[in-house]
């Protein structure tokens, strides 16, 4: 059983049934796990910011930092690995916010908005959508079984394949 940690602004893919992909402490960041149950392929990304246009230079070096460039590359790599759109099981978590009554700091909300748009444009549906609020979340994907898990504030929730 190997645990593969997906760092902030990074993405990892595995096809090894013994692996678990995990990313810690999603605040306003969004984490996306994509799984193809037929070929046992899983990927996970941890994006910090919505759009790469705020820092194009950084997006060259760290495409996974941004939802737009990150998702594009993740999907490309997963399709190369054999993912079929119709089989993709997609889990999304994160997008929390600090308390922001005047709406000056909407990073979490913007991350999720951009993500939703990209998935929609690609004709992909979300199986799980655990976003918003003001807790941080740790997510994992068991590559062997496709089980997706969210840990938040002492609560653990499992999502098995549909």
């Amino acid at each position, binding site marked *: 059983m190997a645990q593969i940690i997906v760092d*902030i*602004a990074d993405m990892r893919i595995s096809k090894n049934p013994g692996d678990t992909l995990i990313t*810690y*402490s*999603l*605040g*306003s*960041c969004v984490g996306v796990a994509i799984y193809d149950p037929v070929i046992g392929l899983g990927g996970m990304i941890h994006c*910090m*910011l*919505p*759009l790469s246009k*705020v*820092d194009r230079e*950084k997006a060259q070096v*760290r495409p996974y*930092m*941004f939802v737009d460039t990150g998702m594009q590359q993740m999907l490309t790599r997963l399709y190369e690995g054999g993912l079929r759109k119709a089989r993709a099981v997609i889990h999304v978590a994160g997008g*929390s*916010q*600090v*308390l*922001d*009554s*005047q709406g*000056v*700091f*909407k*990073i*979490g909300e*913007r991350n999720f908005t951009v993500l939703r748009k990209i998935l929609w444009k690609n004709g992909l549906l979300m199986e799980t959508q655990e976003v918003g609020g*003001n*807790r*941080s979340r740790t997510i994992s994907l068991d590559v062997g079984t496709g089980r997706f898990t969210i840990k938040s*504030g002492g609560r653990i929730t499992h999502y098995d394949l549909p």
Partner: protein
Amino acid sequence: MTFRDQIEQHIDHFAEMPPLCQRLLGYLEDPDVDFKVIRDTIQYDPGLTANVLKLANSVYFGAVQEVASLQAALVRLGTRRIFELVLSLNVSGRLVPALPGYGLEANELLRHSIWTAVAAQELAALLGMKDVDTVFTAGLLHDIGLLLLDPFIAEQHERFGRVMDEQSMAFDQAEKEVLGMDHAEAGARILERWNLGAGMAAAVRWHHAPNEAEENHSLVYLVHLGDMLALSEGVGTGIYGLQFSVSAEPVRALGLKKHHLEYTASKTLDKMRELENILT
């Protein structure tokens, strides 16, 4: 005895500023002190000297030209900044242990503090602000009050759980409600004892209530926003998660737009990693 009284007593027993820093601060306040005395005081500790040089050459100062010796670092950066650097190196060690009351594992508070410091400094640089020498150190120290309050939070764990269930309450408000003092005030009390100057104490004191600061607004605002960015990125979120309020006033007063904040966040990650290697 109220919690507040117990915390007051605890401040009395709380570790003093590291002796080396106390000595350096004394020299700093003495206009007649010889440069060499300051250099020798630091050089006495070779490990510290090496780390001071590493920091001086890191992104912390956006070094363009390498400083090869302590002497050169003192000349280039000035004694005040060198003192802050030594202090940063000393304080960072204290931010390493886990804080079970706050639900922070080992190194989490240090990472949160470095993130805050780097983000605050990046914002200052982006805005072309000059007189913000202390911004990095203030950012690094902003949550030092957590060290003082952690045992009390642990003891009152269940009450915090209940208060926190009222989703709308910010965690510093919950601290005030349960303990009669929040970690910002506790931290400022420590810094007042350390005599680090009004700006630094104000930045720590008002980092969750920037509108209440009477002076040193720039520094207070930068540390507040640095802290909010660190929390937003999920760096060092304990039992409180992201349950702190961001204030609109600093954003308005500094003329920041959303892309400024996001640009700062994008710059912070790599710089934070570089510093983490030096400070841990």
